């Protein structure tokens, strides 16, 4: 064994617990180094996390042109465009059940009421804050439009109104279109269209309920 360096020896005389102290300090240093965030921030892409690999900084890549995703073949022209040839179709391309109409109501209330209002009269909240006022759905012109026309407006937009193709899936667009028809009928209805047994109920309900949602 080599003789000990004299300066270390004198240190040990002066600070007898030096070794223990140094090891505690080392342990603490290791412990604080262990606070790395490698597991918290793993090098993987989660939705919308940026990327420094691609020039545009996005980890979600644009789909190359001509790619057909699963279920996106869009062979069914009527379903995806609302047109048959050049003409708007006047029928929803699947059976309209109560469920479809309820779905349509829900989606309409999310995506369209801000401007068109719950009744479709064009007096939504955003319009009251200065957006261009859309026409009411309850005009003869819009009542006579085939249902494919409404689908088309949601898909491609119309004048000052942007399209809703990114926010509303095709099937839901049809459901909304069907619900717009319901709204149109509802504003045309007379009391004679209501079966006599629910008339009484309707009268009492109308007096307590307003068309605007409770908030």
């Amino acid at each position, binding site marked *: 064994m080599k003789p000990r360096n004299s300066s270390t020896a004198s240190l040990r005389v002066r600070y007898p617990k030096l070794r223990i102290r140094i090891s505690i300090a080392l342990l603490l240093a290791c412990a604080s180094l262990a606070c790395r965030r490698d597991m*918290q921030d793993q090098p*993987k892409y989660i939705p*919308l996390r940026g990327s420094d690999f691609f020039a545009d900084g996005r980890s979600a890549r644009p789909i190359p042109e001509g790619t057909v995703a699963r279920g996106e073949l869009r062979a069914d022209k009527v379903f995806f465009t609302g047109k048959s040839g050049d003409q708007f179709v006047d029928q929803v391309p699947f059976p309209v059940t109560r469920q479809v109409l309820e779905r349509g109501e829900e989606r309409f209330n*999310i*995506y369209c009421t*801000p401007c068109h209002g719950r009744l479709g009269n064009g007096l939504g*909240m955003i319009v009251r804050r200065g957006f*261009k006022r859309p026409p009411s759905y309850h005009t003869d012109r819009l009542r006579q439009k085939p249902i494919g026309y409404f689908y088309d407006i949601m898909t491609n937009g119309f004048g000052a109104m*942007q399209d809703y193709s990114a926010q509303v899936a095709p099937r839901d667009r049809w459901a909304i279109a069907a619900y717009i028809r319901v709204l149109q009928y509802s504003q045309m209805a007379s009391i004679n269209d209501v079966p006599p047994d629910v008339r009484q109920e309707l009268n009492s309900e109308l007096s307590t309920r307003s068309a605007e949602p409770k908030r």
Partner: protein
Amino acid sequence: MSQVFHRSTNTLSRVSIFGGIFILGFLVWAWAELNASNYATRAKVPVNQPVPFSHEHHVGGLGIDCRYCHTSVENSSFAGIPPTKTCMNCHSQIWVNAPMLEPVRQSFRTDQSLHWIRVHDLPDYVYFNHSIHVAKGIGCTTCHGAIDRMPLTWQEASLQMSWCLDCHRHPEEYVRPRSEVFSVAYQPPPNHVEIGRNLVKEYHIQSLTSCSTCHR
């Protein structure tokens, strides 16, 4: 020879032995509190964004539904942050000259993404999924607080494991009818635990506490 220490020091030394335990206990408690504090979890701290987007205005004032902007919250793990185009649906006509909205317009013109700062950020070793919570009747405000009163968004809950587990063990205390999930006005009725128990049965809510539920 007289005593070095007076007798009274006996009590003092006894007290200091007990005191030592309490000091240790206090340190442990302080450490735990610090870990759960808003400082450590970043809860309740409004986050400054490139555009001062206000849920108070858009949700509270204008009554826009969450799903208008967070479109994927019902059918995906990720709730979705709206693309610039969604803002332009309205801001193509509203506040078109506001300097506050210039980053939005610039992003729309140049097709460069807006860089929102994340408010919530679970560690990457935790799996979270919005769609299941929404489908089983857990409302947005249960986890995100009164978002309709936030001029700038902040994180309401601690997002610590104990917070998740508290609800996973007792879902009946938090569940609400599915029709109220997106409502910001919903207040739990006084008998909500009773209703909750029925909803837990009706929605077949399980109590998921196995580690692999969230760490997979």
